[in-house]
């Protein structure tokens, strides 16, 4: 049994943000109280061994849920696999991760869905929930067997990594997914507008001679998908929103009652295109980092709820792949182990976002939208929890990272504010930054 004493509990699902004592027993949250005496706790322990943690100065919140991770298994295990990815997750404070379907082969049938579930269970760290593709082979033409894949354990459908270029296929997907009740997760990127682009089109791309991707490459597809969702009444979730125009389109669509949610990645909230150096492949990401104005609009969107969730879009790559000239390096940032700390340091500490809002957007909201367990510390729920120490600082070094990937822009930097204890179903899986 665990007794977390005098810790600042943030649980948006119960609207708690206050100092509390939390008891965990038998893998579940037993209760949250204002304060407990040792006698009361020992009574509840009923002879079970008790570990007491002094939580003063620290935060306890539900294990974070990341709706957008690339775990690369099957097929690209040199970049990451489900075991290394789920270890990276718990090191970073995530107890549930949704695995994107663009593996090799893509997760486009029930057998593959069950394989991902099974590998997640074998790993035994974060809960790994598979997302199925929308179309067979991710080729953008024929829909997958959504109902069967749901039976197998899928939690959503997405051709992420690729846009569904055919508007008709997207419309049909939104219709057919109603059988499952799951949202279609859309990766919005007009192939022609994005072209062979490498970074956001703007002054910085012009200066460096790196081919540009206009903001419209995302926004025109966001507009299309919102119209299709409205027309069909289907459920839409927009992945990695990165432009001010997209935020505005979503805001208006929500006001009209469209069933849409959207996520934003930490790197789009923190960096902008001007900060990219010509050899900084760690900042080469898709959608590309936007302008300062975009960054402001994204923060505002997350504050006012237009953007519902934060998601890492953890995209691991090998060092050899990223150690290339900018044009030749793959897109993506590995972020499971640094995302929460980065958001704390760059957004919460300077007062741009409240920690309460961050936790809500990374736990309760994703749980609600995708119908997941977790994301809450209500008594009787499975004890997926994070103890966060705002003062803990660490240098981001290759030797410490448990992900196979090193492609993070924070490499070599000292960051402050980390999860120091993480529980999955009441079992401690990370302590003092070491995965157990």
């Amino acid at each position, binding site marked *: 049994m665990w007794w977390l004493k005098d810790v600042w509990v943030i649980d948006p699902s119960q609207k708690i943000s206050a100092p509390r004592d939390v008891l965990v027993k038998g893998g579940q949250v037993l209760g949250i109280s204002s304060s407990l005496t040792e006698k009361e706790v020992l009574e509840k322990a009923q002879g079970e061994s008790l570990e007491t943690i002094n939580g003063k100065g620290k935060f306890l919140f539900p294990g974070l849920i990341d709706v957008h991770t690339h775990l690369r298994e099957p097929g690209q295990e040199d970049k990451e696999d489900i075991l290394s990815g789920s270890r990276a997750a718990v090191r970073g404070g995530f107890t549930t991760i949704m695995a994107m379907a663009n593996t090799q082969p893509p997760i486009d049938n029930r057998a593959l869905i069950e394989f991902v579930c099974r590998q997640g269970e074998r790993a035994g760290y974060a809960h790994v929930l598979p997302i199925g593709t929308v179309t067979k082979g991710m080729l953008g033409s024929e829909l997958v067997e959504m109902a069967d894949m749901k039976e197998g354990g899928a939690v959503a459908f997405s051709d992420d990594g690729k846009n569904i270029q055919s508007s008709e296929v997207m419309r049909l997907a939104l219709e057919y997914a109603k059988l499952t009740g799951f949202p279609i997760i859309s990766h919005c990127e007009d192939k022609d507008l994005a072209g062979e682009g490498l970074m956001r*089109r*703007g*002054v*910085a*791309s*012009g*200066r*460096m*001679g*790196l*081919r*540009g991707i206009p903001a419209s490459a995302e926004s025109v597809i966001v507009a299309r998908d919102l119209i299709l969702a409205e027309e069909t009444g289907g459920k839409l979730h927009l992945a990695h929103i990165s432009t001010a125009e997209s935020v505005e389109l979503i805001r208006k669509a929500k006001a009209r009652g469209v069933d849409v949610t959207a996520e934003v990645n930490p790197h789009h909230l923190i960096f902008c295109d001007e900060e990219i150096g*010509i*050899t900084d492949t760690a900042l080469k990401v898709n959608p590309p980092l936007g302008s300062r104005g975009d960054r402001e609009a994204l923060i505002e969107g997350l504050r006012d709820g237009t953007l519902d969730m934060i998601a890492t879009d953890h995209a691991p790559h090998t060092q*050899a792949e990223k*150690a*290339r*000239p*900018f*044009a*030749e390096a793959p897109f993506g940032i590995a972020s499971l182990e640094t995302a929460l700390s980065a958001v704390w340091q760059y957004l919460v500490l300077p007062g741009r976002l409240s920690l309460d809002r961050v936790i809500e957007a990374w736990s309760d909201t994703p749980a609600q939208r995708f119908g997941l367990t977790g994301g809450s510390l209500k008594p009787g729920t499975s004890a997926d929890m994070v103890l966060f120490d705002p003062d803990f600082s660490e240098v981001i070094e290759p030797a410490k990272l448990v992900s196979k990937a090193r492609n993070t822009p924070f490499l070599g930097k000292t960051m402050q504010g980390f999860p120091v204890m993480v529980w999955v179903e009441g079992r401690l899986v990370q302590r003092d930054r070491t995965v157990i």
Partner: protein
Amino acid sequence: MKWQRKDILAIEDMSVEEIRHILHTAKVMKEILMRPIKKLPTLKGKSVVNLFYEASTRTRTSFEMAAKVLGADTTSIAVAQSSVSKGESLYDTAKTIQAMRADVVILRHPSSGSAKFLADILDPAVINAGDGQHAHPTQALLDIFTMQENLGELEGKNVVIVGDVLHSRVARSNAWCLQKMGVNVTFAGPPTLVPAEMEGLGVKITHDLDSALPGADIVMALRLQLERQKSGLLPSLREYSHLYGLTTERLKKTGKQSIVLHPGPMNRGVEISDDVANSVDALIERQVTNGVAIRMALIYLLIGGSSNVVA
């Protein structure tokens, strides 16, 4: 001045003092180049490697000549572009060249930033001979050297660069170099090839060449890659030529005895009319000679060490 730079990657991060020092050194090198016996022992025992991932005759030969005049040994590695994806990475190739104890590596590569990528890895000096659409510093330096020979001090002069600026490393490097020397630079071309974001280089932008010409001391035409039409960036070469081709008639609008430059090779009848091309032939030959002098200067400055060819 005391030379401290290890590599020549882009004009953008160079000081005016460095640029002037290079131009001054090139002047001396040109005198050496014009001698009947043009061979110096200065860099004897040094090796210069040309690593070219794009086809180039002019630039590669120019670097080779420059190194040889200074007494260095040269090796040229021409890597077909296709082998980049299937073969050895630039990183591994670079390490191999380093292990062979090269003193200078000259890189031409289709990816912007590849020169800095290489310089960050390698101990030997790296000279950027053109990286993607990013920079071509030696071309800019030789252009400015040529302009100075013709016009003297360049401060306050007006230069119009016409054409496919978006895809041009020559335009970018010239814009930086010229502006550092106090020159007013205007980019002219259709909006698809001269988009608004190019203003980030500090230059003026216009889509109306004729309005930009009055007062221009130098007009530089860029080579138009003929495949731009296929990718939809321009409707036809005919219309391009009509709006932006340099003709004798059009050049009268400068109201001056303007100089016309072209980084070559020229598409006669497209960005430059035949008669204008013929009239600038002499200058283009001079640019080629100056190119060798500039490259001699750079190689010398990077690895010449304590020798004192330049008093």
